[in-house]
């Protein structure tokens, strides 16, 4: 136990990875909620790829003009500029031409990514960037500057999102209304993309270009399955981000695997588990709901059977008249839960609301019989057909029949119409 859980915590590199990763995961989760709801996932991917050109540019400029080797703030600034330029180019292309936004994103980010790759390889004697490191990230080698940068980014982004929560919520949900009450919708769009760029830039050094979009959207999507309110979704997403980092880091130490990969693997597994067991939007609950679905027809048949029997009815009698296969016990249980029946000893009786429902169905049945009789249906068909039709009693159907037949009081068999 000690070796598995406590020992890694003693190592500085593990501590730094844990702290840095958690900071990034929290802010990525929160921003990710808006990314998911606005269907911007592809844009996050694009931003992270485009950054490589910015990193190369920042490296070159700092080296050629200031003689600084691998100057981290310079590269960060470069990647931020590249990210913002990508966004601007994308919206420019999709706005002035008929090319749709997803295509514009695809064109621009591969183009800028390619520019970065070409630049890095041409200037390989000046730039000492390990492309592999950039693509895969290195969470166990987090430097102190990375930690500071991510803490700073997280503070800014979270402040903006918390203060302007309602603005982002409304602009995402209903931009026309947002504009109509004077919210600066376009400015909010830009603010959000800048936040996404900041988060992506601060996360790339840890999980790498390819996986960063996962950190942005997977925890948010996991939270989406569990929550019907945006604020709760954001809190849950932050939580899932942190658990992915913790779980992933332990995985990585135990299996001696790549850090970024382990985190995203854990994150994805977490999503799949929630997808299966989520109480409302999960697969399991959907399956259970479908299985427990009781046909309205069976419920109504039980009601009328008991009503006709005129006293508490044993199960055997109900089973004789109601075709429900093996599911009768489940139906009866559900009906007791729905306050339609009460069980007294071995027998079942109608409650007040059950009585009302039953009368409605019976009335529909007898009116349909009268109607069928009046249009000349052969006598031996009348009851069975009416038995099918009695389930059609929504809305105005029954009242229409009643009016059409001149509000009869007795059905063809001389029984009273309730």
């Amino acid at each position, binding site marked *: 136990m000690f070796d598995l859980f406590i020992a890694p915590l003693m190592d500085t590199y593990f501590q730094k990875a844990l702290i840095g990763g958690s900071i990034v995961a929290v802010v990525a989760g929160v921003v990710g909620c808006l990314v998911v*709801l606005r269907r911007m996932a592809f844009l996050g991917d694009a931003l992270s790829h485009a950054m490589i050109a910015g990193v190369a540019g920042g490296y070159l400029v700092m080296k050629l003009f200031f003689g600084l080797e691998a100057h981290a703030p310079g590269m960060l600034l470069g990647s931020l500029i590249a990210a913002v330029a990508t966004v601007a180019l994308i919206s420019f292309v999709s706005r002035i031409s008929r090319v749709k936004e997803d295509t514009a994103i695809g064109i621009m980010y591969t183009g800028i990514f390619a520019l970065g790759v070409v630049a890095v390889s041409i200037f390989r004697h000046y730039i000492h960037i390990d492309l592999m490191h950039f693509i895969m990230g290195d969470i166990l080698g987090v430097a102190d500057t990375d930690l500071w940068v991510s803490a700073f980014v997280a503070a800014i982004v979270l402040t903006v999102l918390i203060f302007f929560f309602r603005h982002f919520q409304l602009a995402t949900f*209903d931009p026309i209304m947002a*504009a*109509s009450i004077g919210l600066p919708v376009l400015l909010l769009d830009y603010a959000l993309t800048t936040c996404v760029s900041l988060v992506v830039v601060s996360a790339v050094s840890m999980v790498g270009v390819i996986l960063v979009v996962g950190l942005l959207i997977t925890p948010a999507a996991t939270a*989406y399955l569990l929550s*019907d309110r945006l604020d709760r979704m954001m809190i849950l997403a932050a939580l899932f981000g942190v658990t992915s980092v913790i779980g992933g880091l332990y995985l990585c130490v135990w299996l001696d695997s790549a850090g970024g990969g382990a985190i995203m693997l854990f994150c994805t597994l977490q999503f799949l588990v929630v997808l299966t067991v989520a109480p409302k939007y999960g697969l399991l609950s959907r399956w259970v709901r479908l299985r427990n679905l009781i046909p309205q027809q069976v419920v109504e048949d039980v009601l009328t059977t008991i009503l006709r029997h005129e006293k508490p009815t044993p199960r055997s009698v109900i089973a004789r008249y109601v075709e429900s296969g093996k599911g009768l016990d489940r139906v009866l249980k559900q009906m007791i839960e729905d306050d339609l029946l009460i069980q007294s000893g071995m027998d079942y009786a109608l409650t007040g609301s059950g009585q009302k429902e039953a009368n409605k169905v019976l009335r529909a049945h007898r009116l349909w019989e009268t109607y069928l009789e009046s249009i000349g249906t052969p006598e031996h068909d009348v009851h069975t057909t009416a038995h099918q039709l009695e389930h059609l009693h929504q809305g105005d159907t029954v009242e229409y029949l009643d009016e059409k037949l001149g509000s009869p009081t007795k059905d063809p068999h001389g029984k009273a119409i309730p």
Partner: protein
Amino acid sequence: MTMNSAFVIEVQHLTVSYNARPALLDVSVNIEKDQLVGVIGPNGAGKSTFIKAVLGFVKPDLGTVRIQGVPAQQAKGQVAYVPQRGAVDWDFPITVKEVALMGRYQQIPWYTSPSKSDWATAMEALEMVRMEEFADRQIGELSGGQQQRVFMARALAQGSDILLLDEPFAGVDAATERAILDVLERAKRSGKTLVVVHHDLATAAEYFDKLLLIKQRLYAYGDPAAVLREDLLSQVYEGRLRIFKEVIKKEGAHV
């Protein structure tokens, strides 16, 4: 501010185009206070565009829209809007109560949270459209007519004197249509002006005080009897005359 006229919405020479194709051309109309106004016209006539221009959401190429004397672009929030169905994401994680609260957002400063009285106003608005028992449902778990009513509650919570509704009756059953109309009428009685895009000519005369007939240009504005005239309708809805004859006959029987 000049409040000289009885008109709450003044539209002068309004021209709006998308990609150089005019959707509205030289529309001028003045709408009086406390009216239930129906906007009718065929698909693509520019009804939604008209609504969006009054809202200040699309910029006119030419002409002006004034809301209570103020240019529409500056009159933010004086006009509440109920979107055409399908304009929002129904899977959005938001409850009915929160949607109604959105009507209050303009009044809440950005540095504070919604107060108790904001929530109370939102709940009151939900009660007005008889949706209070659904307050905690996610917005997608409602029927089309119920969703429509929630958005009306949001517009009512805004407290503005002018309400714009884009096809509130589209795809709802007769009972819900009644319920929505009832809310519209109560809003009118409480001193609001409502502009409603409507598709069903057969009920237009019965529902509205004034009708506005557009198809790119303004064809008529006034009492239903004056707008639902055979010659006008046949110009706007080319060809389908027979149906209109019936509409007009029915209209004659009403008056």
